[in-house]
C-alpha cells in the first residue's frame, strides 16, 4: 500500500507539473492577451503597450510561470487579472456545481448502465441486441442536442423543471436537486450506453466460465451466482470504465453547463480562455488534473478491494 501511494504521489506531482506548464505555455502563446481585451477597440498602441507592462505580460514566459508556480507552492493560486478576485475563491464557488453534475452523471450512468448490462447478459438474444442498439443510440446522441430536447419537453411544454440555472445545495436541497435533474440525465445518457455494454460483455464472459457451472451444480440460486460472484468478478473492467468516465465527464460538463447555464468550472475555463485570464485557466487546469490523479488512485484502491491478487501485485 505504501509503495502504491509513493508511486502515486511521484506520478501525480510530475503530471500536475507537466499539465500546468503546458497549459501556461499554450495559453500564453495564443494570439491576443488580457491587455487587448481590457482596452477593447478604443485603445491606442501606446496605451496597449503600457497596459501590457503594467500587467506584467512583457516578462519572459519562464519568469511568469515561475511566479505563478512559486505562488502555488505557497498555496496561492493568484488572482483574476480582471476582477482581482482570488482564483481559489472563484474556483471554490463553482466546484460544487461541477461536482454535483459529475457525481450525479456518474451515478445515473452507473445505476442504469449496470442494471441494463446485467439484464442483457442474463437475457436471451433480443435483450442483448436491444442493449447494443441502446448503446449505439446513447453514444451517438450529442448531449447538447439531448439537453435541448429535454428542456423543450420538461421545462417548456411540461413546466416541471427549470430550463436553466443552478440552486446551491445549502440554499435549498430540493431546488438543488430539481436544478440538476435535466443536466445530470443529459450528461449521463452517453455513459449509460458505455457501461451497459461493458457490463454485459464482462458478465457474459464470466457466465461462460466453469466456476459458474460448478456453483449451479452445487445448487446455488441463480440470483446468488449472478450478484454475489459473477458481478463481483466482472466489476474490474466496469470499475476501469467508471474511472475513465469520471474524468471524461469533467470535459462533458463544458457543453452541459452551456446548455443549462450552470455556474461550473467548464464555463469558467471557457470564459477565462477567451479573455486570456491566465491565472484562472491555470487554476482550473490544476484542479482538473488533480481530480484525474485522485481518480486513478481511487480506481487502483478499488481494484485491490475487488481482487486480492491486484493488492499483492
Amino acid at each position: 500500500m505504501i509503495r502504491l501511494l509513493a508511486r502515486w504521489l511521484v506520478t501525480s506531482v510530475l503530471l500536475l507539473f507537466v499539465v500546468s506548464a503546458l497549459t501556461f505555455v499554450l495559453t500564453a502563446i495564443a494570439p491576443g492577451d488580457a491587455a487587448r481585451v481590457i482596452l477593447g477597440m478604443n485603445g491606442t498602441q501606446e496605451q496597449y503597450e503600457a497596459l501590457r507592462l503594467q500587467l506584467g505580460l512583457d516578462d519572459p514566459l519562464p519568469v511568469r510561470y515561475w511566479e505563478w508556480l512559486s505562488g502555488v507552492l505557497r498555496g496561492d493560486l493568484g488572482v483574476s487579472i480582471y476582477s482581482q478576485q482570488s482564483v481559489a475563491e472563484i474556483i471554490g464557488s463553482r466546484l460544487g456545481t461541477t461536482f454535483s453534475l459529475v457525481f450525479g452523471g456518474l451515478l445515473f450512468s452507473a445505476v442504469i448502465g449496470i442494471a441494463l448490462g446485467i439484464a442483457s447478459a442474463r437475457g436471451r438474444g433480443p435483450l442483448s441486441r436491444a442493449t447494443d442498439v441502446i448503446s449505439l443510440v446513447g453514444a451517438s446522441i450529442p448531449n447538447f442536442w439531448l439537453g435541448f430536447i429535454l428542456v423543450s419537453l420538461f421545462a417548456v411544454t411540461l413546466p416541471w423543471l427549470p430550463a436553466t440555472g443552478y440552486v446551491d445545495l445549502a440554499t435549498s436541497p430540493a431546488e438543488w436537486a430539481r436544478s440538476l435533474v435535466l443536466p445530470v440525465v443529459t450528461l449521463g445518457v452517453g455513459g449509460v450506453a458505455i457501461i451497459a455494454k461493458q457490463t454485459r460483455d464482462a458478465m457474459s464472459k464470466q457466465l461462460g466460465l466453469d466456476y459458474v457451472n460448478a456453483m449451479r451444480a452445487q445448487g446455488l440460486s441463480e440470483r446468488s451466482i449472478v450478484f454475489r460472484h459473477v458481478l463481483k468478478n466482472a466489476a474490474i473492467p466496469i470499475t476501469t470504465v467508471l474511472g475513465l468516465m469520471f474524468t471524461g465527464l469533467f470535459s462533458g460538463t463544458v457543453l452541459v453547463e452551456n446548455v443549462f447555464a450552470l455556474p461550473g468550472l467548464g464555463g469558467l475555463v471557457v470564459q477565462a480562455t477567451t479573455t486570456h485570464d491566465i491565472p484562472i485557466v491555470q487554476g482550473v487546469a490544476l484542479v482538473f488534473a488533480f481530480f484525474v490523479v485522485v481518480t486513478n488512485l481511487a480506481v487502483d484502491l478499488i481494484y485491490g478491494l475487488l481482487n486480492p491478487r491486484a493488492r499483492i501485485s
Partner: protein
Amino acid sequence: MTSLFTPRRLLATGAALAVASAMLVGCSASPASTETDSNELTIALQAGPASLDPALTNQALEYYLDLAYSPLIIRGSDGTLRPGLATEWGYVGEGNTQFQLTIREGVEFADGGELTAQGVVDHFTYVQGSGGQTSALLGGATFEATDAQTVVVTFATPVPGAELFFTQFGTGIADVISPDGLADPASLGTSTHGAGPYILDEAATVTNDHYVYTPNPTYWDAENVHWDKVTIKVIANQSSILNSMKSGQVDIASFDYTTAADAEAAGINTHSVPNVFSGLNLLDRAGTLVPALGDERVRQAINYAIDRETVATAIYGEYADPTTQTTRDTGFQEQLDERYAYDPDKARDLLAEAGYPDGFEFTVASTPFFNGDTMTQAIAGQLAEVGITLNMESIADANEWSTRMASGEFPAAWIGFGSLPLFVEGPGLFLPSAFFNAFKSEDAELTALFGQLVVAAPEDVEEVSEQLEARIVELAWFAPVAWTPLGNYWTDKVDSTEFEATTGLSPIASLIDIKPAG
C-alpha cells in the same frame, strides 16, 4: 464478504433515483414555481463582465453597471438626455474643447460617501489612468472642480457632442465611483460603489453566473425605483435564453434574429432596430499586401459587385437594411445607399480599367462572432461572379480575430460596427490611429473634414457630417452590406414602452426606466 452489487442495492439505488425524480417533478408541478416573482425582474445576457469596475467594464455590458451606478447624464431609451448626477451641462466658449458639468447637490453614494465636484474629478482621473475602454475618450484631458458643484473638463483636442461621454454610453466615465471605492480599487471588480437605484447583493451573486441587485435606500430619485429585486443571469447560449423565457425564468433578453420567429411564435414580445453595419473592411488601402486593393477603382468594384438586398435578406430575413454607409447618425444620406447599386458589369469594367480584367485574390480575416463568417461567405460568392477570389480565414475566438485584424496581417477583414456619431466613429474606425485602420491609412480630405467636424458650430455639424460620410463611401475603404439588428425580447410581465422607444440611433433600452406592465 458482502457484494457491492446485490440486486437489492441496485434496485434500491435505482428506485431512489426514480422516486427522487418523481418527487422533484411532483413538488414542482406548478408552472409558477419556475417563474420569477411579479415585482422581480430577471434579465438574461450572453456574457458576464470580466470586472465590475466601471473603468474596466466593456461598454457592451453596461447593464451590469447601469443598475448600481447613476450616470452624470441619463440617456433615455429614445436617445433624449435628462439630468442624472449632473443637473446642467454644456460647452464653455467656442471650439468644443471645454465642457462644464453642474453636479447635483445632496447625493449620497450607496456606500455612504457624498457626491462632490472634487469627487467627480477624482473619478475622471481614475478612469483616465485605468487603461480601460473608455479611458481613451479622455486621453490628454484635464479636469478641474471650479467650485463645490462645478466640474470643467478640458479636452486635448476638440470633441463635439461630448455630453454623450457622460451618459451610459461612456460607461466608465459617466458612472461616478464613490470616494470609498476609489480608495480601494481592488474592491471595484466584485462589488459596486455607485449612487444608482440598486446595490449589488454580493452574497447572492455568483460571478459570471448571476448578479443580484436590491434597491438602494439612499437613491436620489427614489420614486423611480421600479423593482424589488433585479437579477441579471449570464446565459451564453441563445437557445437556452429563449427556453428560459418560454418557461418564465427570464423576463428580458437581447434580440437575436436567428430565434426571433420562434420567440414571436411563443408569444414573446420582440423589437429590433438596424444598428450594426456588417460587411468588409478593405484594410490594405495602399496595396502593401494585395496591390489591387491599393486602387480605389478596385475597392469600388468590390462594392458594385455585392447584391446587398439579396445578401441581407438571405442572412437576416426582414431584420436588416441594406447599406453602403458606416453611420446612421448625422451624416447618413438615403441617396448614398444608391452609390454602389448592384452592377456586376460596372464592377468588371472598373477591374479591367485598373488592370485586373481577370480579377485577383485576397484573404479576409473573419470570425463566427456576430455571424461574420456567414456574411463573409455570402460576399465571397458575389465577388466570385466578377472574377475576384475571396479566401476566408475564420478565426473562432473574437479576441484573437480582433488582434490579428489590427496587426496588419490581413489585407481585409469582416467588420461589424455599431452606428455612432461620426466624431466618435472616426478615432475608432477611419482615422490613421483607429483600431480598425490596421495599415494606418490616411486620406488628406477625410482627415481635413474630420478636423472641421470636431470644431463645427452646432448649425454646421450636419453639412460637414454629410460631406465626411460621402467621402468615406467614395473612398470605398469599406464594403458595408447591411445594417443588422439590435433589440430586445421581453415577456408580458414587463412594460413595452422603453423597448419600443429605441431607434437605430439609440438601440439600447434604458434599463433603469423599464417598469412592470400595467
